[in-house]
């Protein structure tokens, strides 16, 4: 399978996630990672922390 096939599969599966918060969180993580693929050890903690705060569901 070439890369775009694998990409398609990933996109399809993520799209199926019903929980909006989870889906959007994962979407944003992947978007971030795609943008940093050319770097060996990118800084990620700040970004991830921000995203977690943003998409964590509210306490019941």
């Amino acid at each position, binding site marked *: 399978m070439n890369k775009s096939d694998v990409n398609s599969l*990933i996109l399809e599966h993520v799209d199926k996630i019903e929980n909006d918060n*989870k889906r959007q969180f994962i979407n944003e993580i992947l978007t971030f990672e795609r943008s940093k693929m050319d770097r060996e050890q990118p800084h990620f903690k700040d970004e991830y922390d921000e995203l977690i705060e943003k998409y964590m569901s509210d306490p019941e």
Partner: protein
Amino acid sequence: MTNLQFLSITLNDYRQYKGEQKIDLQIRNDRHINVIEGQNGAGKSNILNSITLCFYGTEEHLKDEKEGGLETFPLVNRDRLEELDEDETAKGYVEIELGENEPEYVFKREFTTVKTSSGFSSTIGDLRLQRRVNRDWKPVDNPHTYLNEILPTRVHEYFLFDGERLHEFFEEGYPERVQTAILDVSHIELLNRSLDHLEKMDTEIGRKASNFEGEAKRLKNQLDEKKQEREQKKERKQELEANIAEAESKITGIDNKLRDSSDAAVREKQERRKYLNDRLDQLEDEIDNLKEETTEEMVQAAPIIYNLKALEYTHEQFAELAQTGQLPPKIQDWFVQELLEKGECICGANLDSDEKKRQHLAELEQEMSLVMQENLEGKAEIPRIIDDGQDSLRRIIENRRKISERQTELDNVDVELRDISNELKNYDLPEDVDVSSLESQRSEIEDRITEMSQEIGRVDQQIETLTEKIDDLDEEWRDEAAKEDKHRRLMKKLDFVEEASEEISEIKQTILAQIRENTEENMNQYFNDLIWKDEDYTVELGENYTVSVYGKHGDNKIGSLSAGEKQVLALSFMSALTKISGFNAPIVIDTPLGRISSKPKKRIAQNLPTYLKDTQITFLMTDEEYTDDVRARLQNSVANEYQLEYLNEVTEVKKV
């Protein structure tokens, strides 16, 4: 889909290759194979090295000194270097033309060697790329970007490889290598990165969370400890399982040897042993089932049978009551009723006038009714209960008989198995298979397997206990932690991160499963294409990356493949990977047939032309591999043939 090929490789003063030597490798029509033949030391492997040097700046297949290099040897040809004075430099290069039918890409890498006072020192230049656009050649600013789309570093070793190293691939511990390879070609780096980073966040949040005061902290520490303990147990279990798998494959190997033994009596005993083992399993199963059935019956029957005396007694009481109750049970009831209506008792008392008597009779009627009820029910029911008990008991007895029968047969089978083992151990016939020692080995290995299985049982128990403890601790810890407001949020974060991780993991597994499936399909095809035997094999690639090779009798041969068969398996795996990777690059194999003895070698050679028909394959072979026979069989598929002539430490590439 395009099929790229190496149109030519030009070596200029590269190691043994003096001057400029262009190797034309273009394939056409049905001929998709190139052969470059050279003795060991003539620089054969350096052709492979020249490609990786050009593309990736490294030589990955450096052999011994004769082949022109430990890394310390200068890159530029030594003859050329003789002409140099101190501090003078000489250059060389490797140039590769790639394209479908015509050159479309020209990759070039220069290198320089300078003569110093103490010897020589080499440096490697940058990769350069020219690309053909319509009829013009344009230099490319970012050659690595292009190379990455043609044959990136990550997957190149599945296209350009050393056949001699291949035989090691399916040795002990191969599932890990298989897994790594599949991960390499799967393009799921994105998911791996995400998972990696999420895990790190998990650890960090967890660490912050464990900065609790007091109880929560203590619990967290305990929890972490237990988790670590469990990890160790799991590792131990994996180790044991791997050892058992290895031991079992050794036994399969021994069984195969014994079975193939030229002595008919030995073969017969092996067959008999196989039959007996199967029968043993069957009997054990039957006994287990019978025991289960029996237990059910017993549970039903026991209350009855233990209380038979009580039951009988009660039944008797009811029966008596019915009898001594002066009147037959059924009659008593309506008789009293009539008396009441008539107003006269049989004793003559006038019931109407005597209110007491009347009351007395009414009470009697009541009492009798109740007793009658109980009587009737009890009287009918108890016998039924006792009968049930009896039936259960009969079935129990029957089962016990069956169990005993089977147990006896089982004991006999055991005895016979032991006898066979002993007989084989004492075997004294001179033959090519040392039966006696094989049998001893076999027994030893079986004992080891039993020991290890038992240990796994113990470890499993330990893991179960630990998991229970961990779950409890986890709940306790989270409860404790949640109590503190400021940490509630951290716990939520943790949950969230872990859920997201799981989700991504699932996606990864789904994709990997698909890739494994595709790889398996391809492996099957290629293995059967290449293998010189007439039967059809089925190659399976399991979830845990184990490989099974099934012959037509359904037996798994993975533990007993010959060196040649392992080579073929490895070759088919490599090719499967190239197909899966999505890159359509040509393939270069150094010493593809090195480990294979002459008979299978001829047969593989016969099948080589059908192997990867649509890909350009270049073989670098020794004269021992490229025998006249092999040459004859490949003749119709070879596009270009070269011989490396090595004289006075210089190699010349001669077209045949």
